[in-house]
C-alpha cells in the first residue's frame, strides 16, 4: 500500500469516528425526555413506560456507536507529544 493510500484511509477513519461521536451526542440529547410534558401518564410499551424505552434505545445506539469509535481509534504505543 502506498503512503498516500494509508493517509487517506487514516483520514477516513478519523472522519467516521468523529461522525459516530457526533451521533452519540445527538442520542444523548434525545434520550432525556425534556420534550415531553412533565408528570404525564406514560404509555406502557414492551413492559416499560414509553419514555424509558426511548431512553433505552438511545443508549443501545450510544453503546454500538461508541464501541465502533473505539475500534477505529488510533491508540499508539509511544511518541506523540502533547498537545
Amino acid at each position: 500500500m502506498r503512503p498516500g493510500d494509508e493517509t487517506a484511509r487514516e483520514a477516513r477513519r478519523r472522519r467516521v469516528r468523529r461522525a459516530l461521536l457526533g451521533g452519540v451526542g445527538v442520542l444523548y440529547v434525545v434520550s432525556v425526555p425534556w420534550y415531553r410534558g412533565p408528570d404525564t401518564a406514560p404509555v406502557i410499551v414492551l413492559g416499560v413506560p414509553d419514555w424509558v424505552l426511548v431512553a433505552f434505545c438511545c443508549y443501545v445506539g450510544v453503546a454500538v456507536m461508541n464501541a465502533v469509535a473505539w475500534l477505529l481509534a488510533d491508540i499508539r504505543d509511544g511518541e506523540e507529544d502533547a498537545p
Partner: protein
Amino acid sequence: MSAGTLGVLGLGLYLVVLGGLAAVAHRARRDLSPADHFLAGRQLGVFVLFLTLYATAFSGNSLVGYPAEAYRRGYAWIMATAFMLAIAVVSQMLVPRLRPLAVTHAFVTPGDWIRHRFRGERGCVAATVVVGVVMTVALANFLLAQLVAMGHVASQVSGGLLPYWAGVVGLAAVVLGYETLGGMRAVAWTDVLQGLLMFVGLGAMLWWVLGEAGGLAAVTRAVAATRPSAVMVPDRQACLNWASTIVLVGVGASVYPQAIQRVYAARSGQTLGRALALLTFMPLVTIVVVTLVGVSAIPRFAHLGAIEADAVLPRLLAAWAASGPFGAVSAMLVFVAALAAIMSTADSVLLSLGSVVAGDVLGRSGDDPRTTRLGKQIAATILVGMTSLALVPRLTLWRLTELKMELLVQCAPVFLLGLHVSRLRALPVLIGVVVGTLIASAGVLTGVARIQGIHVGVLGLVANVAIAVVGSGRRS
C-alpha cells in the same frame, strides 16, 4: 442448613479463592518497582483489562447503591445507564492522546502527566500536588462508600451471623492483604473472578425478580399502582438533573486515578481500544438490570426511609433465599457477586490511593522501590481511617458517590483540556481547580447539593474550565 450458614460458607470459599489468586500474583511479580506493583509491569491483556475495568467501574454502588436509588426515584433511574456509558464516551478524549505519552515517558501516577505537560512552568508542582490532594479526598470518600456497602452485604449474606462492623473491618483487612501482597496483578486477577461473578449473579437476579412478579409489564403496573410518580415522565428539574449527572459522572469518572493507571498498565494501545469497546456495552447489561431490580422493589417494600433503602438489594435477596433451597443457593451466589463488586472497587481505589499520595502529593520518585513501600503504608493508614468512619454510616451510598464525583470532576480539565489545548498554562489551570473545588465544597458544607437539579460540582466545573481557558489565553 440455614441461609446464614450457607452464606458464611459461600463467603469463606470465595475468600479462599481470593487468597490463592493473591498468592499466585505475589509469586508472579518481577521486581519491587512501583511500575510492577502499581501497574502489573504494564502487561495487562484484553480480557483481564476489560474485566478489571468492568469490576472497577461497576462498584458496590452499582450493585447495592443503584437499586436503592432506583427504588427512590423509580424509572427515572434509567439515567444511570446514560452516565455509566458516558464514562467510555468521554474517555475517547483522553485515552488516544494520553496512552502514547504514558508509554514514552513511563508514567505511573496521574500526576506524572501533569508534571510532563506543564514542566518548567510556574504552578506546575502546586497543580500536581493540588490535583493529587483532590483525587485523594475523592478516592477516600469512594473507599468509604465501598466499606459501608461491604458491611451491609456481609451482614445480610450471613443472615446476621456477621454483624455490620465485622463485615466492614474483616473484609477491609482482606482487601488490604491481597492488595499489599500482589499489587495490581492481584487486583486485576481477582477483578476477573469478581467481574464474572457479578455478571452471572446479576443475570440470575433479574431472572428471579421478573419471574416472581409475573413479567416486566406486571412489575410496571404494580409500581404505577403503589407510587405513580415512579413511572411518570420526569419534570424539568429532574431532566436537568439527568443531564447534569451525565456530565458529572461521565467527566468525573473518566479521570478516576485507577482508570488512568489502567490506561498506563495495558499491554498495548490496540489492547486498550478493544477492552474499552467491550466495556461500553456493560452498562446495558449491568445498570439496566440493577435499575429494574430496584424498581421492582417499590411495590414489595412500600415505605423505606432514605438510608434504609440502601438495603433494598439485601432485602430482596433475603426474600429470595427464604423461597426454598434453590433460592437460598442462588441468593448466596448473588450476595457473593455483590461483595465481589464492592471488594474489586475497594482494592483498585486502595492501590491508586497509595500511589497518588506517595507519587503526586509527597513527590516521591516513580522508579524507587521505597515508593512502593511508602504507597502500601499510606494505603493501610487511609483504610484504617475510612473503616472507622464506615462503622456509623450517615449518608446514602448515592450521595457518597455524588460527593466523590463533584470533587473528582474538578481534576478533569487538567487532563481533558491539557491533552487538547496547546495554550493551556499551569497557573490558570491550578486556580481553576482550586476555585472549582471551593465551589463544590461550599455546596457540600452548606447542604446545597443541586441548584435547579444541576449539581454544584458541575457549576464549579464550568467556572474551573472558564478560568483555565481564559487565563491561559491572556498569557499567550
